């Protein structure tokens, strides 16, 4: 497949690995903040190509993981309302809430449908005018514009039975929060598809104020190896900067049209991140102008904040402070088939990835 196969060539990976090994002298830690990167590192076994001077940390890049139990509990409360069709990306189906999950609710007879695209939700709303169709909006800046486009379309078509429950979040505040928190890293591997939307200006504080380099990376193994090489070069030269490895997709200005649409429909709000607490202006809520599509405005439900499950250290793992193997529950009480925390359920959650790909 074009633009995939050539970025998986073994010889290229080995060649870049050799170059990294030649120049890497300092002991460094690089953090990626995107579940897709976590997956790629493990799926392609990239650890084995890196010299012992380089360690890779996984940050809070999994939108499912950082959304917390309360979001799932709220979604469950909605699916139990009469006349509701809940539509969701597959990622959320097995995430444990405090007492149940969407999968369990579906098995109990609730109308919950997995969609590949929010466009299908719109279609379901069109075909079922008597039902309230709720779409669970999760994801960062790559996916939030899609939800925004769907809401804009619903407004245009006067599809008043289409609603969104938004848990969308944005990247930059959490990256800064981590650094201020004192997480020991020397550079960021930045998410390629988020940046394709946002452009690179969101990262400019990181080298300037914190001396941390940022390289925007694609998701194929060759992309990530090249991004790591670029970061190592920056660090060895003591010249932190914002660079783009993923030049075939990412422009410095990002996708202006998508951002405009995002801004029309959503506005920033303070938001709760699992394991990190409240981070100012890090979440997205639907603007008043489109409040008829905001299910929380149309049909408020009261869902109590449940305490985190005992022994679960997802929060520490999401901040890169601990590894899954540090968790007492990992691979014992908490497994992909019977997860305790979201990091294990989400296919690209750090714990699930470690579990699947561990040696």
């Amino acid at each position, binding site marked *: *497949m074009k633009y995939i196969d050539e970025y998986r060539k*073994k010889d290229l990976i080995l060649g870049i690995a050799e170059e990294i090994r030649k120049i890497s002298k300092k002991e460094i830690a690089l953090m990626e903040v995107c579940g897709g990167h976590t997956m790629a590192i493990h799926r392609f076994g990239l650890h084995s*190509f890196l010299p012992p001077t380089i360690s890779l940390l996984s940050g809070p890049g*999994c939108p499912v993981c950082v959304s917390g139990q309360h979001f799932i509990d709220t979604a469950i409360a909605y699916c139990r309302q009469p006349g509701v069709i809940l539509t969701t990306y*597959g990622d959320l189906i097995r995430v444990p809430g405090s007492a149940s999950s969407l999968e369990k609710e579906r098995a109990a007879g609730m109308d919950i449908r997995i969609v*590949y695209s929010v466009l299908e939700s719109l279609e379901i709303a069109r075909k079922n005018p008597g039902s309230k169709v709720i779409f669970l909006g999760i994801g960062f800046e790559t*996916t939030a514009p899609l939800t925004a486009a769907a809401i804009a379309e619903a407004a245009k078509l006067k599809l008043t039975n289409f609603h969104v429950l938004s848990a969308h979040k944005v990247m930059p505040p959490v990256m800064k929060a981590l650094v201020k928190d004192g997480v020991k890293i020397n550079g960021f591997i930045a998410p390629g598809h988020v940046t394709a939307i946002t452009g690179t200006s969101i990262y400019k504080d990181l080298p300037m104020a914190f001396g941390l380099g940022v390289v925007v990376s694609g998701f194929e193994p060759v992309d990530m190896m090249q991004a790591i090489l670029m970061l190592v070069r920056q660090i060895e030269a003591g010249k932190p900067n914002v660079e783009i490895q993923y030049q075939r997709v990412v422009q410095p200005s990002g996708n202006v049209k998508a951002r405009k649409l995002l801004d029309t429909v959503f506005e920033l709000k303070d938001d709760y991140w699992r394991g990190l607490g409240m981070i100012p202006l890090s979440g997205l809520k639907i603007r008043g102008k489109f409040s008829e599509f905001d299910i929380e405005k149309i049909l408020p439900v009261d869902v109590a904040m449940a305490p985190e499950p005992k022994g679960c250290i997802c929060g520490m793992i999401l901040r890169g402070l601990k590894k899954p193997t540090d968790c007492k529950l990992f691979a014992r009480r908490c497994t992909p*088939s019977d997860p305790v925390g979201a990091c294990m359920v989400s*296919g690209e959650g750090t714990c699930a990835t470690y579990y699947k790909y561990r040696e």
Partner: protein
Amino acid sequence: MKTREDKILLSHGNGGRIMHDLISDLFMKYFGNRILEQQGDSAILPVYVTTVVAGQHSGSRSKTKPAFPEKSGLVEIAFTTDSFVIDPIFFPGGDIGKLAVCGTVNDLSVSGAVPLYLSASFIIEEGFPMKDLETIVRSMASEAKKAGVLIVTGDTKVVNKGKCDKLFINTSGIGKIDNAARLDRKISSIKPGDLIIINGALGEHGMAVMNARESFNFKTPLKSDCACLNYLVREVLDNSSSVKFMRDPTRGGVATVMNELAGMMPYGIELSEPDLPVGKGVRAMCELLGFDPLYIANEGKVVIVAGEKEGERIVEVMKKNKLGKQSAIIGHVVKDHPGKVVLNTETGGKRILASLSGDPLPRIC
């Protein structure tokens, strides 16, 4: 009891770890016997048979000596059962009826049996279109004829609307274990160096059905690979002296079957990602939805373990059959990491292939 749930969940039917726990905690606990414990695709039943040799009256009038000479001996019969609840009941490449016949024929074949007779039981929802039922029944007849098996008994039940999803089918099958086939059923004869072979491309059934079921709106030429494998398997067994293991990688895919096998041996398994046959359509759908072809169901595939020297020959034999055109050696048994399955990736890395936990879910992350 390891099973923590107080209700049956969908995952209990997924073929993964939760289902295996249910089988051992509940069914084996109450039903357990030596034959059930084999837990193969079919139960191998020893039947002691006495046959009369015709036409040679011995003239004896003794009460203890038989008038006609008799031959007594042990015959092994394979017996298996499977239920089919697939949704949608019609999909590219087949339907629930075709699946019901092929699934049971294949379970018998991979046990080394010649499939002979099937039963077919139908549980039908009131209101189900007669036309659709006829299409499905015709499809079953056609597959049975192709496979050379007879459907000899059956049952029909109709339930109120809403009490079952359109149509459920159960097929049970009987086959004769052919001693001349020399199938070695002992897992204990597998040793490091033995080869893992498959007769074609991975994941076609699972992805075709998923695409037909969901509203994802992908247009793909993908078809289920659903097919009866008994003739292919017979050709392999007739031409090989050391097939040591065969299984059809249905739900859970090749990775799950390999894990089951590795769990039964003091050795490990290594699969080679560059050698896995994967069609264009499956590859595209898997990349789009974040799936791994190794975990997707197949209904026209058999995984074979055979001695090192036989591997190439088996591949050549299978390639002559229309169901084996893309046969390939995909891995081998190793001394290392006993009980575990490792994949040597296309990029030169290694990773563990764990058993499937639940149906793969499409993801956007």
